[in-house]
């Protein structure tokens, strides 16, 4: 029996920006994917060839990289994702959008679609580009060219259209915001540098240091068992188990018993959402009043510490930040706060993160992020066993120093083969992502900082405005990431913006008909991973960085083309207009074949010339980069800074930890929400979301939203094999598979809600439906919902109703604070009530009666296509 004809190797992480993760082998038989499985490195390499490493911790326990890839669950279901019922199989046009006549922006999200040909679609698109260019100018086209599409380079999932438009006069782009790092980016960077995202970038050899010296690790809002599924894989889980084996106490701090705490935690501090700052201040109070912090270290390694001391002790506002003060705010009894503070002061304690998460994506997230740095500083960060590490993104932006375990000798790049938008580029015509709503409505506005994840700290002091230089503002939106309302701020407001008269043409290119795609005027069908050949990398496994010759394995689904090919099809149609469009396809592609680009990508990826061999690379399908020589001798994390801050300064202006930030004080003297010293902020800058606020009388719960367990943002919501797992969906009495809403049994009892009930989670911005899951995995006062559920619009826009449970629809539009353009997608107020789903079905018969919907896979594109319902 034949179990496979051939095997291809691809990375199946959802990286975008030309990065890659989660390399797997896929066996193909009779032109069909038969299985997706880990790559066994020992079939091609010996341990010696890879400079195999072993770390040693307490009790002689050891940790090794292993000789196969540690695949997380997402790649294993990629067949289902590839052949989803919700694939866009051919170009589609919104039936009542007529570029020659009535455009009906108000029916976006409601009207259905008709199938059209590639030829017709690209004719219309080219004509619209030409028209917008002539009437308004090139900067009136906004490219939504970032996000977490598949990891591809030649066929880049995001931003191929920018390569075309930059040759036709320019474009406007939305900044790729630091969406999983908001608080660190807008806050922690001002306390300890760490460009570009504000998390510790000095992690070299810290895993072994922790294993030998650390007594307890605070997993603060850290769910390494979930977040790594899209980016990195399961070496993170193995590392956490090793720390457990070394006797390191695992202390979880989060409102929920997340999937990491559920299997690793020794202690759980169930802090209320977005109240971490109160808990942190109370810890500082205990240390200050009991004299149990590293006074000498603070003296030599920090500036402005007395400002914090003054504030914490209550001299500034008459309120000492005692554990008793913090208790009603953060929901942790004062005696527990004191015990934690004293334990931390007596032992070597480190902090673990795996991105946001509730902790880092709430209003004023820059405050807990800075306070965390303050606390680390008070206990001598960089001393043995005292550090902050990440379980993810171990070569973020190519920085091998982000990894706590021995890195490969280089982090290869796909840049030479990459046809997408380069993060940070087009800076003169960029809109901070969280303000895009305003641009779509045709408003003028200003803000600080370009706000891409790649910008450095000083960029936050640059004032920007839109539109620039008398330009007309946005009239056309070209999106290859139609998942804003599922992943970013103010979802219902965004839906309204998409329906604005100001937006004349909304074009989407995407593999799946999900979320905001249902508001588009034209949708182009796009290929997925195994349908194209490409050049890939995997630099996030923590084992060995890899370059991959990714060979196409299956035929495209329907009429799908890759993003790069789709944009070329538009380019061809533009050429007929001559002038700036003349020969634009060739100018864009250089006439290169995919194979040529893969070769160029490989040859310029960073591997030294004498280690390059394209034919062998193609034959072997991947090439691993060995561990750097002499990794054992590399300086541990921040130990240099700890020992000699003058010789090894931080990247702050003073080179030290800045408890008081002179640059924030200088640039924003009137900002009392993100002032020079982190504070507890009760309300402000559009946010009034505390349990003791007046709003809480109507909306008495705090929403917690993490990275989803069974999705990557909005992706994978259609996978049957996930949806039948108990924690993925809750099937209601009407047979619909609802997004789970976690409620503590004490709250559920008060509300008369039982597991399986359909509930509405609501505030003044609208409501989303979900299926109740009554569980001790979340504390009282909290309603927990993963973000990213595929929206199923019943009523769109502010005041709307969504059956899919896309919780970001009801989150605030206001950003972290007025000068910090971060998304606020957790820690805000909402009410919860049981609904009569049959009464709703009677009220909205069409929306509740989609014929091809199945609880097994969810939405089906046919329900939106005229003639195919």
């Amino acid at each position, binding site marked *: 029996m034949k179990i496979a004809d051939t095997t291809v190797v691809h990375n199946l992480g959802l990286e975008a920006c030309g990065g890659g993760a989660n390399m797997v082998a896929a066996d193909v038989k009779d032109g069909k994917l038969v299985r997706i499985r880990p790559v066994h490195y020992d079939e091609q390499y010996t341990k010696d060839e890879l400079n195999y490493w072993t770390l040693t911790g307490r009790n002689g326990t050891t940790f090794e990289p292993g000789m196969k890839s540690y695949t997380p669950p997402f790649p294993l279901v990629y067949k289902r994702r590839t052949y989803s019922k919700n694939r866009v199989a051919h170009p589609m046009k919104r039936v009542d959008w007529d570029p020659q006549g009535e455009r009906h922006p108000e029916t976006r999200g409601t009207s259905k679609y008709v199938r059209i040909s590639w030829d017709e679609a690209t004719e219309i698109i080219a004509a619209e580009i030409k028209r917008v260019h002539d009437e308004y100018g090139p900067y009136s086209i906004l490219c939504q060219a970032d996000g977490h599409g598949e990891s591809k380079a030649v066929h880049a999932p995001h931003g191929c259209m920018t390569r075309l438009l930059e040759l036709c006069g320019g474009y406007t782009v939305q900044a790729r915001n630091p969406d999983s790092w908001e608080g660190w980016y807008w806050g922690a960077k001002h306390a300890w540098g760490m460009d570009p995202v504000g998390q510790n970038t000095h992690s070299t050899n810290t895993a072994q240091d922790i294993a030998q010296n650390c007594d307890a690790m605070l997993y603060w809002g850290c769910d390494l068992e979930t977040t790594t599924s899209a980016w990195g894989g399961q070496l993170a889980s193995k590392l956490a188990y090793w720390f457990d084996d070394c006797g390191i106490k695992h202390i979880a701090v989060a409102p929920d018993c997340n999937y990491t705490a559920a299997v690793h935690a020794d202690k759980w501090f169930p802090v209320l959402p977005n109240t971490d700052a109160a808990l942190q201040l109370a810890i500082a109070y205990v240390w200050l009043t009991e004299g149990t912090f590293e006074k000498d270290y603070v003296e030599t390694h920090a500036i402005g510490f007395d400002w914090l001391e003054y504030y914490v002790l209550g001299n500034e506002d008459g309120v000492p930040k005692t554990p008793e003060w913090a208790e009603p705010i953060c929901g942790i009894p004062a005696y527990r706060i004191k015990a*934690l503070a004293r334990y931390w002061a007596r032992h070597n304690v480190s902090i673990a993160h795996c991105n946001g998460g509730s902790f880092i994506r709430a209003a004023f997230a820059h405050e807990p992020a800075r306070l965390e740095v303050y606390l680390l500083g008070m206990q001598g960060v960089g001393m043995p066993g005292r550090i902050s590490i990440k379980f993810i993104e171990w070569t973020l932006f190519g920085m091998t120093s982000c990894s706590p375990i021995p890195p490969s000798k280089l982090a290869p790049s796909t840049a030479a083969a990459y046809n997408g938008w380069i993060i940070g580029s087009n800076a003169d015509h960029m809109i901070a992502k969280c303000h895009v709503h305003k641009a779509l409505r045709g408003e003028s506005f200003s803000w600080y900082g370009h706000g891409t994840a790649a910008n450095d700290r000083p960029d936050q002091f640059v004032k920007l405005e839109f539109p620039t230089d008398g330009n007309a503002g946005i009239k056309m939106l070209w999106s290859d990431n139609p998942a804003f309302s599922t992943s970013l701020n103010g979802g219902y407001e965004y839906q309204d913006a998409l329906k604005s008269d100001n937006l004349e043409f909304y074009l989407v290119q995407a593999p799946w008909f999900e979320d905001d795609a249902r508001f588009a005027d034209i949708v182009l069908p796009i290929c997925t991973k195994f349908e194209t050949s490409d050049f890939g990398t995997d630099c996030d496994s923590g084992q060995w960085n890899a370059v991959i010759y990714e060979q196409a394995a299956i035929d495209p689904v329907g009429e799908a083309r890759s993003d790069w090919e789709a944009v070329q099809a538009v380019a061809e149609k533009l050429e007929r207009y001559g002038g700036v469009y003349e020969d634009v396809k060739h100018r864009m592609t250089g006439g290169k074949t995919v194979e040529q680009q893969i070769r160029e990508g490989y040859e310029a990826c960073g591997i030294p010339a004498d280690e390059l061999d394209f034919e062998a690379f193609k034959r072997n399908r991947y090439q691993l980069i060995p561990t750097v020589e002499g990794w054992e001798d590399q300086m541990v994390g921040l130990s240099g800074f700890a020992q000699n801050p003058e010789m090894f300064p931080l990247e702050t202006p003073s080179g030290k930890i800045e408890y008081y930030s002179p640059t924030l004080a200088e640039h924003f003297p009137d900002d009392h929400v993100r002032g020079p010293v982190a504070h507890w902020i009760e309300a402000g800058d559009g946010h009034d979301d505390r349990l003791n606020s007046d709003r809480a009388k109507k909306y008495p719960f705090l929403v917690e939203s993490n990275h989803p367990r069974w999705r990557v943002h909005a992706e994978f919501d259609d996978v049957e094999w996930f949806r039948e797992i108990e924690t993925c969906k809750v099937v209601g009495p009407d047979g619909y598979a609802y997004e789970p809403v976690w409620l503590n049994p004490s709250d559920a009892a008060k509300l008369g809600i039982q597991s399986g009930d359909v509930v509405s989670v609501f505030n003044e911005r609208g409501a989303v439906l979900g299926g109740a899951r009554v569980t001790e995995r979340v504390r009282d006062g909290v309603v927990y919902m993963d973000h990213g559920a595929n929206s199923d619009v019943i009523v769109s826009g502010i005041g709307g109703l969504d059956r899919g449970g896309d919780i970001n629809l009801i989150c605030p539009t206001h950003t972290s604070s007025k000068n910090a353009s971060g998304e606020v997608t957790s820690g805000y107020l909402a009410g919860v009530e049981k609904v009569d789903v049959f009464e709703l079905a009677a009220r909205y018969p069409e929306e509740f009666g989609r014929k091809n919907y199945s609880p097994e896979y969810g939405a089906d594109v046919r329900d939106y296509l005229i003639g195919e319902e």
Partner: protein
Amino acid sequence: MKALVVDLDRCNGCFNCQLACKDEHCDNDWSPYALPQPTTGQFWCKVEQKERGRVPVVRVAYTPTFCGMCDDAACMKAAEDGAVYRREDGVVIIDPAKAKGQRQIAEACPLGMVYWNEALDVPQKCTGCSHLMDNGWSEPRCVDVCATGALRYGDLKDFAGELDAASVAEELEGAGSHVYYLNRPKRWIAGTVANRGENEVVIGARVGIFDDGGSCVASLETDEFGDFKYDECGKRRYRVRIEADGFAPIELEADCTHADVVVDDVLVDQPR
């Protein structure tokens, strides 16, 4: 004889084993080993999950569950015409051709690991990935995708000493299952002792755990967080006696018969 060893202490609940099994068998025809598995509803490898405890002492117990390839296999006994047979390596296979129409094979398994495929009119279950093993693989899909080492596969004799403390699925006890569980969790009693007057936890409080016969089964001390946890409980009732110098002793009931016990924070007072 092959064995599958499941270390429950190392299962992180990723569901890779369940998913890889579906990847291998759904929409793939591996006749004569097995016909395709339906896209949903069958779990030849199934991860059970159970939430334990209550705020703030909560864990999830994941238990990957498999066909036991039992020595005394109920499915084999229920089969007619030799429709279920045992390979030399011990793997029990349902012959999809011979088993057609034999619903009683699916109904026989005490663990519910044999499924009935209505559309194809056959009983179906784990094949031990025999089609792969016969083509050079050394372990089945579920084991290959297990990152943490929770699942291991090999010759029974290679695990010898390790399996002394192992148990099998309760439903398969006595049937000769070859799926062995290590570190099966026991029930726990957990709590925190604090002095609310001073808002301080009580460190070093003596915590005695007594069974329903009155015997002391454990003597613990609260840790630096004022916490105690005894996780060797059986499915029975216990009494907990907490004593700390300067405080009046406290006695509590802890009924572990049906679930773990997390007591409300024990708030002690100075004796007046």
